[in-house]
């Protein structure tokens, strides 16, 4: 049984369930002679956090990029909050946000200037108040006047996360959101994201290599390998299905090509 996640890799297109915040159908991306993503379909239930997992080159960033509309698929459809991302992404982008350690903010602007610019880009009603609120929440008050480029990697991650929450997004795409953070700050970030989701009903799609984080935050997991969805389900279900103790072990099994059936057989023998 899947827990909230509906996934139809390789099947014919199906209508999105009404409670899906993200609905992907037969998504395909081909670069020259390489298929980066092959007929991937899934739904993400509104108000839940879903993990997008896979090794390097599995297709996580490709999927996130297409959800944001900055990468065009070769085939397939994407709906976010009911909007067709490929046709009308500017209708839904104000209701989304994104953070990734691989996309920087301008380094010579101060933290406050950066947040102010993005608050205006996203049409935040009262930028000063929102920035003050996020600064307090993410312990950024002392950093507001410092250039972004002078911050440590962990501080930058916090600023990027604050930027991603400026517009009270209904859908948040998180690419390794706690990378570079010490365990204390990372825990506070996760707690904030959980609180934020509880209070707003935000839908989150999380690409992460931190399996503890996935187990804690995610109701559902999508496992990608070589551009194909190879498995899916709630973390507890996957752990049980593969006969493992942790998501880390499940991840290694899947990334190395094992299947739930072969693992169960191995366990039985």
């Amino acid at each position, binding site marked *: 049984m899947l827990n909230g996640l509906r996934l139809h890799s390789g099947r014919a297109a199906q209508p999105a369930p009404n409670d899906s915040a993200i609905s992907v159908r037969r998504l395909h991306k081909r670069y020259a002679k390489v298929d980066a993503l092959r007929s991937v379909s899934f739904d993400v239930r509104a108000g839940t956090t879903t993990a997008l997992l896979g090794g390097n080159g599995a297709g996580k960033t490709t999927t996130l990029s297409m959800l944001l509309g900055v*990468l065009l698929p070769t085939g397939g459809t994407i709906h976010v909050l009911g909007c067709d991302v490929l046709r009308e992404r500017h209708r839904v982008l104000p209701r989304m946000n994104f953070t990734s350690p691989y996309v920087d903010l301008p380094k010579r602007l101060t933290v406050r200037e950066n947040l102010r610019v993005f608050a205006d880009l996203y049409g935040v009603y009262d930028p000063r108040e929102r920035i003050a609120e996020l600064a307090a929440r993410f312990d950024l008050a002392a950093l507001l006047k410092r250039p972004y480029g002078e911050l440590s990697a962990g501080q930058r991650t916090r600023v990027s996360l604050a930027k991603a929450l400026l*517009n009270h997004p209904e859908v948040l795409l998180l690419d390794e959101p706690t990378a570079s953070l010490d365990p204390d700050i990372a825990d506070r970030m996760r707690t904030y994201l959980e609180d934020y989701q509880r209070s707003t009903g935000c839908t989150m799609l999380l690409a992460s290599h931190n399996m503890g984080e996935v187990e804690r935050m995610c109701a559902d997991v999508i496992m990608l390998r070589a551009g194909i969805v190879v498995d899916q389900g709630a973390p507890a279900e996957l752990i049980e299905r593969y006969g493992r103790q942790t998501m880390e072990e499940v991840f290694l099994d899947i990334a190395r090509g094992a299947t739930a059936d072969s693992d169960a057989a191995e366990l039985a023998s």
Partner: protein
Amino acid sequence: MSASVQALSRQAGLGPSLRRIRALVMRHAFLLLKSWPRIVSMAYYPTVTMVLWAFVTLYLAPSNSFLRDAPGFFIGAVLLWDVLFRGQLGVSLTFVEEMYSRNLGNLFVSPLRLHELIAGQLAMSVMRTVIGVGGACVFAWLLFRYSIFSMGLPLVAFFTCLLAFGWSIGLAVSAMLLRFGLGAEELAWAAIFLVAPVSGVYYPIDVLPGALQTIAYALPPAYVFEGMRAVLLHGTFRADYLIDAAVLDLVFIGLGALLFAAAVHSARVRGTLLQMGE
């Protein structure tokens, strides 16, 4: 969390669009205005070039009837050429800055639309041009008592036409940067010099060979600089030149914007927008 901060303004319409353009301008203005070396460097080159041509004029004027009749010719020409150059640089360097900052990904996943990004680049171009050429104009007055405003109202027309052509080249350069990455950064500085020989900045177009004259008259600067010569040497304003330049400007800006839009589309197909950087 208060209701006021939860509320987002409407995202469609002119107001939100102008706010997003303002945000982009603010982003670059923050960068520019806090660094006096950047501001000085913008005015430095136009000023030094102006001083150089002013001394050439002082040297040649006693023995040259042309320069005796129009002593401000070279200074006016070099200042107007810098309007074109700064106008182009303003667009291209604004884009280069986003690439250096690895900020393109953030911009393209935000509600900012392509035409708003272009409008922001053009606004920054005006700001950079006014700072750069304005500084040189001030020095031209202080050092040589030459005022470019002595050209009168035609100056506004010349300024606008040259700036607009600079924008079109700037958009084309931005497209190249998006397609080939920062390896093409030199284009931002060098592209405009390709049209310098056929712009007629320092000499009339009729000194060019026939084929080059055809090319020259297919570009707006030839009309602007011929118009400048008519004002300075004969005291006449050639409206026909201005109209030709303006029509060509519209064509070239359209082409530049199309090229830029095509480069953005290509980057979305190739998936390079999130990775673009140093």
